[in-house]
């Protein structure tokens, strides 16, 4: 059945949900379509703002420092693009860029408080949580369940990595070994690292255990106690002060379980950052959706934007398709938050790239048209390096208000905005900036959308 809205958001990742929530909170009738979940849903659940500039070898001490540098070196970066807004005085540009990101971080922390994914961390410093490989990465916000307390501050901390027998996604001995060598090379604490394995058998089997069955099992009353019991012996043996788990402590009750384990073992317990599809990512996704719906937004799942109607420089409606139905949605404004290749916002064959909903022209990381690039030529021979893969910087070019622009550099229509990984000009994998860019661009775009709609009676 056809519907009408003030704002249609296409894509329900971090960018779409942040923007949709802000619009709904401002009183706009907001409909959010999604055809599937994506990177946000299986991310590690930590929120990166900015860890590195491309090709750097040192992480920024804080997002503030990073944005300061970024705004100068990369003025077209999604974080920096608002600097081109005429309404901002030149000398205030860098401050505005930093402030906007700070506001977004603050917004996230406040809104996610009390949900399944409450956050720790400050805008004033990057933290370095440990991953399931035993490496560390810079990030701004982590979920409270990942908080390792004074692990690196205490001189005498002893870290115990705990694996689960038959859960191959995390190998505690490899992680422990890697982490220890990293600590030794930097001469920092903890200086003693150990590993052990416990048994958790949601279905009576100690093999082929998945993150989801473990997390759901631990949501049940009484299941965490058995782990605590098994751990006591290992903790005592090595004198562990801190205990690291793979991120499976629960979906609903992860924080409660962390607290319970800490009580029962007298240690600080925390979750590591994990690979897709991680449970903390699922918590984050679910929490953002809940916030959106609570703020009055309408979530239309299983709907894909497949075509549109435009009149002059105004987008009038989009057609949304489900497995066996199709509807038209009229709206005053639209936000494209469809992601990059994973989300399907950008796709490509051997002849070039294209933006999949409106057929807008995607650009490369240095803002040349990407409609005819051969993807293999936009790659580096090195698979994993601080240079990253140029193809990952492709996407849409936007004006300072986050409206996608055409080849001539002006907005395609006045009421279409874009946010998140569909944007060009940054590489979130090497910068460690994924969810931060998504949230900030969504935040910025939403402010502009609200202003646009409220102007028009």
């Amino acid at each position: 059945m056809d519907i009408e809205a003030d704002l249609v958001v296409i894509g329900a990742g971090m960018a779409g949900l942040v923007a949709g929530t802000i619009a709904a909170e401002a009183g706009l009738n907001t409909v959010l379509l999604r055809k599937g979940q994506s990177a946000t849903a299986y991310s590690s659940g930590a929120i990166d703002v900015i860890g590195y500039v491309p090709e750097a070898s040192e992480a920024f001490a804080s997002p503030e420092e990073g944005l300061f540098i970024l705004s100068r070196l990369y003025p077209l970066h999604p974080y920096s693009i608002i600097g081109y807004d005429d309404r901002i005085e030149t000398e205030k540009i860098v401050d505005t860029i930093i402030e906007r990101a700070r506001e977004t971080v603050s917004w996230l922390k406040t809104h996610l408080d009390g949900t399944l994914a409450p956050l720790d961390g400050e805008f004033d410093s990057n933290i370095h949580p440990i991953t399931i490989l035993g490496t560390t990465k810079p990030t701004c916000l982590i979920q409270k369940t990942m908080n390792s307390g004074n692990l690196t501050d205490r001189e005498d901390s002893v870290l115990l990595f705990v694996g689960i027998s038959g859960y191959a996604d995390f190998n505690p001995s490899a992680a422990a070994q890697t982490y220890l060598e990293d600590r030794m090379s930097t001469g920092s604490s903890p200086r003693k690292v150990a590993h052990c394995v416990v048994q958790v058998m949601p279905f009576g089997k100690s093999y082929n255990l998945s993150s989801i069955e473990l997390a759901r099992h631990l949501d049940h009353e009484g299941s965490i106690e058995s782990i605590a019991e098994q751990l006591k012996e290992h903790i005592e043996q090595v004198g562990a002060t801190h205990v690291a788990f793979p991120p499976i402590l629960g979906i609903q009750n992860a924080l409660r379980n962390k607290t319970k384990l800490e009580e029962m073992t007298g240690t600080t317990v925390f979750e590591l950052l994990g690979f897709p599809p991680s449970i903390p990512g699922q918590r984050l996704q679910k929490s953002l959706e809940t916030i959106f719906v609570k703020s009055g937004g309408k979530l239309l799942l299983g709907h894909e934007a497949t075509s549109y109607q435009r009149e002059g420089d105004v987008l009038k409606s989009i057609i949304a398709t489900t497995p066996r139905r199709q509807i038209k949605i009229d709206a005053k404004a639209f936000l494209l938050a469809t992601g990059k290749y994973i989300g399907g916002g950008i796709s490509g064959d051997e002849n070039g790239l294209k933006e999949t909903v409106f057929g807008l022209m995607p650009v490369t990381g240095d803002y040349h048209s990407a409609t005819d690039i051969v993807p293999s030529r936009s790659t580096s021979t090195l698979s994993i390096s601080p240079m990253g893969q140029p193809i990952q910087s492709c996407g849409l070019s936007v004006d300072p208000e986050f409206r996608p622009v055409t080849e001539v550099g002006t907005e395609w229509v006045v009421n279409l905005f874009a946010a998140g990984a569909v944007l060009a000009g940054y590489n979130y994998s090497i910068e460690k900036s994924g969810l931060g860019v998504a949230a900030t661009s969504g935040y910025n775009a939403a402010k502009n959308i609200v202003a646009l709609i409220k102007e028009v009676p």
Partner: protein
Amino acid sequence: MTTSEFDVVVIGGGSTGTAVARDCAMRGYRTLLLERDDIASATVGTCAGMISSGLKYRDEPDIMAMCSKEVVYWNRIARHIIMKNPILAPLLDLSDAASDSSYMDSYSEHVGEREVPPMMFLTPDDSLELEPMLHPDIIASVYYEEYFIDPFRLCLLQALDARNHGAVIRTYCEVIDFEVNDNDEIEGVVFYNRVSGATEDVKTKVVVNAAGPWAHKVAKSADDKLPIRLNKGAHVIFDRRIVNVGLTVKAIDGRWIYLFPHENTTLLGTTALDTWEDPDTLVASFDEIEYLLQSMETVLPSIREARIIRTMTGVRPLVPEWKVPEGKVTRGYEIVDHSEKQGKKGLISFLGGKLVTCRHMAEAVTDLVGKKLGKEVACTTHEKPLPGNEVDVDIIALSKEYGISLHALERMRARRGTEMVKVLEHTKEHPEWKTTICTCEPIIEAEIRVAIREEFPQTLNDIRRRIRLGTGPCQGTFCTYKAAAILAEELDLSGDDFLVDILDFRAERWKGIRQSMRGEQLAQEELAQGMYACVGNLDQSDVDYDLKPWEEGC
């Protein structure tokens, strides 16, 4: 330096080298195999695995007869790693049919012994029913059947069989020099152990140079010569069986190319480009990929809709015939006894040949080795089965007994035959090893551990050759870090080594993926970057990562 003495040293762990090592060992010669990298890491690992009936060599009827006989032997000794593919050659116009019709007769001469039908014509309607995705304008097609083998398992099983018969198999050992006396007789071989960093030498009087595309370099390090013609061939690999039967078609330049279902993928190949580059640096070019796609597109218009997961390239070590195109170079092999060419006595080199003839080549060379050693013994490689071939395996019964999925067992059977039970037994003591590590194949942890313990891999890529780790659509995105952790545990590696193993395998997979990057592989790579760089932060890792030959100069 460690020294020991062997009757024969075989250089090269490809199809021929391992076949020679097996034959020598089975005849009781003290045999050492030295392989610079890993078993089947070069040419044989980049072919389509067809054990050809010799179809293309109708101008060489003896070669055809030999090929056909060898197929019979392979079915006898390695049935468990052999598959049969029905093949269609769709014809778009009569000239395609008329020009080469003599091949049909020569092919059909030996079909009986191989238990395949003679070549047959099919009407266009029948062809389209068999393969609905064919171009609707085909006028007829020719049908025939060929056998295919897993080239990695073949070489590994030959090596393992050689070892079972007393041979010593050393991988990551690169021959750097020869000890030669004043009579130009070989006395020993010097090699560099790439894992330990030590230089070692062994005494021997007979050396078989089966180094494929490096055979001329090996000869050179013996101060000898070996003219050779090197020719590059590339394949494109699809994520699943995209056609029901194999297809062959004439490419834009008249060469025959093919699209063959291969286990759970499909291979499109191959090209032919004479090359003087370092084989280790070669990657498939955009031209080669287009050449293959466009040519196959003429009979399979929807081919670009299928998902390309990677490309692979290898170098053919051809007999040095000049002034003829690659397709016209003989596929018969040449055995070069250097003592008969005023070269080093005791050095025997190989040129040419095909996968299907590797056993035959080995037999001929081993006969020669026996003569040189003065210990002539009859060959039995065509009679004795390779390990795992003994009897059929009841997958359903095994599934009930060990509690492992049918599919995981079926895939394991395709690699190990009867030997698979040895892997499964481990799960009784270690039930957690029933866990699936590679979700695409699938591969369970027990098989990875057994492969590490008994099949001497050093890297994840070596494991990939043993058990197809990371060969599915995700190209190792998800199994790399899990398998690396298992390897680190089994070999007691440091944390740095664990990370280097991950980076190495990602690099090796990327080598093939990058060239054909398009479509869904874009999303796959975004995901891999998201995992290893964004979460794992491996791009900022300061481990000792050595640039690979194909990564240099970027």
